[in-house]
C-alpha cells in the first residue's frame, strides 16, 4: 500500500465533500474552503477536557459516582465509535444523489482498492472528528479527575481499532449497496422503487433514534449490566476488551483483543474485496413500465393539464430521488420518537383524559407539518439543472406553483387521514372537537405547503451535490418564520382551550383558523409566484 497515494485520496475525498457542502456561486470563494474539522478537534479537545475537569472539580460530585459512570462510558465508547462510523457512512450513502456518485476518475487511476478503502475510511473519520472530540474530551477530563487515565488511554486505543472496523465495514456495505441497488433496479422495476423507498425511510428513521438521548441512556444501562451476555456478537468485542480490563480479567481481555484485531483485518479484507470486485460504480438502469396517463377533463383525450403533469413529475421525484425520500422519513421518525419519549399506554387507558390521548399525536402532527413544509420548500431547488425544462416550456409561474403545492399537500393529506382515523379510534372526543382537530390539520398542511413554496422560491439552491440541501442558508429563517406563522394560525384553538377555558365553541375557533390560514396561503402564493417569475429568467 502506497501511503502517499492513500493520504492524497483521503484528502481529495474530504475536500470534495467539504466543497460540495459549502457550494458557492463564486468558484474562487469555493476553492478557499479549507478542512476545519481537524483544527476544531485540535482546539476543542483540550478545551473540553479542561472544562470537564474543572466542572467536576468544582461540582463536588462523589468520586464513586463519577467513577461508576465513567466505567460505563469506557465500555460504551468503543462500540459507540464503531456505530458512529457505520451510521455516518450509511447516512452519507443514503442521502447521496444517485446521479452524483461520480467517482469515475478513480477507475482509471493507478490506485489499489485497498488504498481507496483506507483513504475513504480516513475521510469518514475526519467527518466524525467533532463527535469523537466531545466524547473523548469529556471522558479524559473526568478520568483525570478520578485518576483513571490509564484506562482512558486503553479505551482510546481500542476505540481507534473499533473506528477502523466500522470504517472498513462500511466500505464493504457501500460497495455492496451500489451493486445490489443496480441489480435490484434492473430486475425489479416498480417493486425496486418501493423496496428502496421503504428501506430508505426505515433506515433513516431508525438511525435518527440512535442519536436520541433516551435511547443512548437505555443502551448505556444495558451495557453496564448485560454486555457479557452478548459476547458472541463480534462488533461488541472491542467494548468487551474494556469491560474485561475493568474487571481485571486479563485472559478475556487478551482473547477479545485478538478477536477484535482479527475482526479489523477481516473487515479490511472484506472492504477491499468488495471495492475491487465492484470497482466501477454501476450506472442506474432502472426500468419502469409506462406510466398511467391523466385523462383531460375537457377533451377526454389522454392529455394532462400542465399543473397535473408537473405534480406527477414531482411525485416521481419524491419517490425516486434518494435525497427526497428522506423527507418522507420525518413523520415516521417523530412517530417512533413519540413511542420512546411518551407514555403511549394512555391510548388504551379508558380512564385517561381525551387531552392526554390527543397529546400522543402532537409530535407526529409536528412531523407531518415539517414534512409538508420541507417537501414544498425543496420542490423548486430539487429541480436542479432540470429547472431549464420549466424555463423553456410554456408554463406560467402559477401553473408551476399549483403543480408543486399539490404534491406536498396530497402526500400530507393521505398521512393526515390515516392519523385522524387512528385518533378517531383511540380518542372518543365530541364531534365539534374532532372538527377543530380536522380543521387544524388541514389548515396546517395547506399553510405549510404554501409557506414552503414561498421560502423555496425565495431561497432556492439548484446545485446538485451529495447531500443537496435544495434551499440556501437563508431558508433557515424562512423555516422558523413559517413555524411562527402556523403557530399564530392555530393559536385560537390553543388559546381557547388553555387560556379562555373553552369560552368559544370549537366551530368558532376552527372558523377563525380557516380564515387566518386562507390569508396566509394567498399571501405566500402571491410572493412565490413573483419570485418564480424572476427565477424563470436566467439573469
Amino acid at each position, binding site marked *: 500500500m502506497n501511503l502517499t497515494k492513500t493520504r492524497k485520496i483521503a484528502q481529495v475525498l474530504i475536500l470534495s465533500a467539504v466543497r460540495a457542502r459549502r457550494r458557492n456561486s463564486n468558484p474562487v470563494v469555493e476553492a478557499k474552503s479549507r478542512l476545519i474539522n481537524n483544527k476544531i478537534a485540535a482546539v476543542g479537545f483540550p478545551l473540553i477536557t479542561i472544562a470537564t475537569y474543572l466542572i467536576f472539580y468544582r461540582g463536588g460530585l462523589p468520586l464513586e459516582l463519577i467513577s461508576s459512570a465513567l466505567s460505563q462510558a469506557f465500555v460504551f465508547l468503543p462500540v459507540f465509535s464503531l456505530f458512529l462510523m457505520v451510521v455516518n457512512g450509511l447516512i452519507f450513502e443514503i442521502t447521496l444523489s444517485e446521479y452524483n456518485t461520480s467517482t469515475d476518475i478513480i477507475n482509471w487511476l493507478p490506485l489499489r482498492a485497498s488504498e481507496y478503502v483506507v483513504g475513504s475510511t480516513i475521510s469518514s473519520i475526519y467527518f466524525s472528528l467533532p463527535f469523537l472530540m466531545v466524547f473523548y474530551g469529556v471522558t479524559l477530563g473526568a478520568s483525570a479527575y478520578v485518576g483513571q487515565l490509564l484506562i482512558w488511554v486503553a479505551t482510546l486505543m481500542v476505540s481507534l481499532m473499533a473506528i477502523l472496523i466500522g470504517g472498513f465495514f462500511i466500505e464493504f456495505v457501500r460497495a455492496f449497496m451500489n451493486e445490489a441497488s443496480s441489480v435490484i433496479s434492473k430486475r425489479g422495476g416498480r417493486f425496486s422503487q418501493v423496496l428502496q423507498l421503504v428501506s430508505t425511510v426505515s433506515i433513516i428513521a431508525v438511525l435518527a433514534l440512535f442519536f436520541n438521548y433516551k435511547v443512548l441512556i437505555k443502551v448505556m444501562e444495558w451495557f453496564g449490566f448485560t454486555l457479557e451476555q452478548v459476547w458472541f456478537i463480534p462488533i461488541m468485542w472491542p467494548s468487551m476488551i474494556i469491560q474485561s480490563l475493568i474487571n481485571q480479567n486479563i485472559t478475556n481481555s487478551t482473547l477479545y483483543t485478538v478477536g477484535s484485531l482479527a475482526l479489523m483485518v477481516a473487515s479490511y479484507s472484506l472492504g477491499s474485496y468488495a471495492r475491487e470486485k465492484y470497482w466501477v460504480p454501476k450506472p442506474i438502469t432502472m426500468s*419502469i413500465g409506462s406510466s398511467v396517463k391523466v385523462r383531460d377533463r375537457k377533451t377526454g383525450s389522454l392529455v394532462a393539464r400542465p399543473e397535473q403533469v408537473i405534480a406527477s413529475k414531482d411525485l416521481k421525484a419524491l419517490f425516486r430521488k434518494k435525497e427526497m425520500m428522506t423527507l418522507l422519513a420525518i413523520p415516521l421518525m417523530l412517530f417512533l420518537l413519540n413511542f420512546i419519549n411518551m407514555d403511549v399506554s394512555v391510548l388504551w387507558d379508558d380512564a385517561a383524559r381525551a387531552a392526554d390521548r390527543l397529546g400522543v399525536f402532537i409530535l407526529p402532527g409536528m412531523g407531518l407539518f415539517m414534512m409538508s413544509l420541507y417537501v414544498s420548500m425543496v420542490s423548486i431547488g430539487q429541480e436542479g439543472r432540470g429547472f*431549464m*425544462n420549466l424555463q*423553456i*416550456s410554456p408554463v406560467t409561474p402559477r401553473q408551476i406553483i399549483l403543480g408543486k403545492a399539490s404534491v406536498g399537500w396530497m402526500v400530507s393529506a393521505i398521512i393526515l387521514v390515516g392519523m385522524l382515523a387512528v385518533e378517531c379510534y383511540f380518542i372518543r372526543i365530541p364531534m365539534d372537537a374532532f372538527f377543530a382537530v380536522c380543521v387544524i390539520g388541514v389548515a396546517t398542511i395547506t399553510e405549510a405547503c404554501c409557506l414552503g413554496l414561498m421560502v423555496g422560491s425565495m431561497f432556492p439552491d439548484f446545485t446538485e451535490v451529495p447531500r443537496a440541501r435544495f434551499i440556501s442558508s437563508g431558508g433557515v429563517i424562512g423555516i422558523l418564520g413559517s413555524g411562527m406563522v402556523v403557530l399564530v394560525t392555530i393559536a385560537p384553538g390553543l388559546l381557547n382551550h388553555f387560556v379562555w377555558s373553552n369560552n368559544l365553541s370549537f366551530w368558532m375557533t376552527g372558523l377563525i383558523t380557516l380564515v387566518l390560514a386562507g390569508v396566509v396561503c394567498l399571501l405566500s402564493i402571491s410572493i412565490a409566484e413573483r419570485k418564480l417569475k424572476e427565477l424563470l429568467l*436566467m439573469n
Partner: protein
Amino acid sequence: MINEYAVKIENVSKSFGDTNAVKQLNLNIPQGTIYGLLGPNGSGKSTTMKMIMGLLKPDNGNIEVYGINPQTTPYEVKKIIGYVPETPQLYEFLTAMEYLEFIATIHELEQNEYESKVNEFLKAFELVGHENEVLGGYSHGMKQKIAITAALLIEPKLLILDEPLGGLDPKSARIMKDLLNRLTEEGVTVVFSTHVMEIAEAVCDNVGILYKGELLTEGTSDQLKELSNTPEGTLEEAFLKLTDSSSVRDIVEALAR
C-alpha cells in the same frame, strides 16, 4: 403583416458584471433557413440564443421572434421554440418516455399526435428498448438524442440548437443534418451554434461570426470565404482568418517543441 424574418435582433447588448457578453448586436434571420452562429468560446453565442428564447433579458435593444417579443411575452415565444442546450438538462429520475410525455403535455399535444412521432425518433436514434429506463443511466449521447427528440416533438417554428451534434454517433449526426434540411423545407427556422466548421459549411444557409460579443460578419459560406480572401479554402480557414486566429500554426509549433 407577414414577418419576413423569424428572428430580428436590433442593437442588443448584454453584460454580466464587467464582462460584455454581447455588444450592439444586429441580426436578421429569414424564415425557413438554417442560420449558423459561429465563434470561439465566450464569443456570446449561447447568450444570444438564450436571449432569443427569453431566458435572458437584454440590457438594451430589441428582439422579436416571429413578431413576438420574448421579454414581454415569453410564454407565447416558448410555445413555438424548440431548444437543445449544449449539455442536455433532463429530469434524470424520469424514464425517457415519461420525460417526453411531460414535454408533450406541457406543450398541450394530444397523445395520438406525439406518440407515433416519439416512436419514430426512438427508432431513428436507436433508443428502442431503452425508453422505459431512467435517464440518469443514459450516456451523454443518448441524453442528447432525447433532448433533440423533445425539441422536435413539439413541432417548433424556430429550432435553437446549441452545439447539437456533440456526443452524437455518426449515423445520428447524419440523420440530424438531413432532418434539419427537411425541416427548413417545411418552413421551420433553425438557429444553431457549432465549433465544427465542416458541419456549418454543409448545413447552414447563412452563418454569422460572433467574436468577443460582436457580429464580425455574416453571409453564406462562399461570401465569408471571399471576404477573408480564401475563396478556394474552407470555412474553417476563413473563420480563423476573420477571428484573428492566424497564429494557430505558431502555437502548434511551440507546443510540439
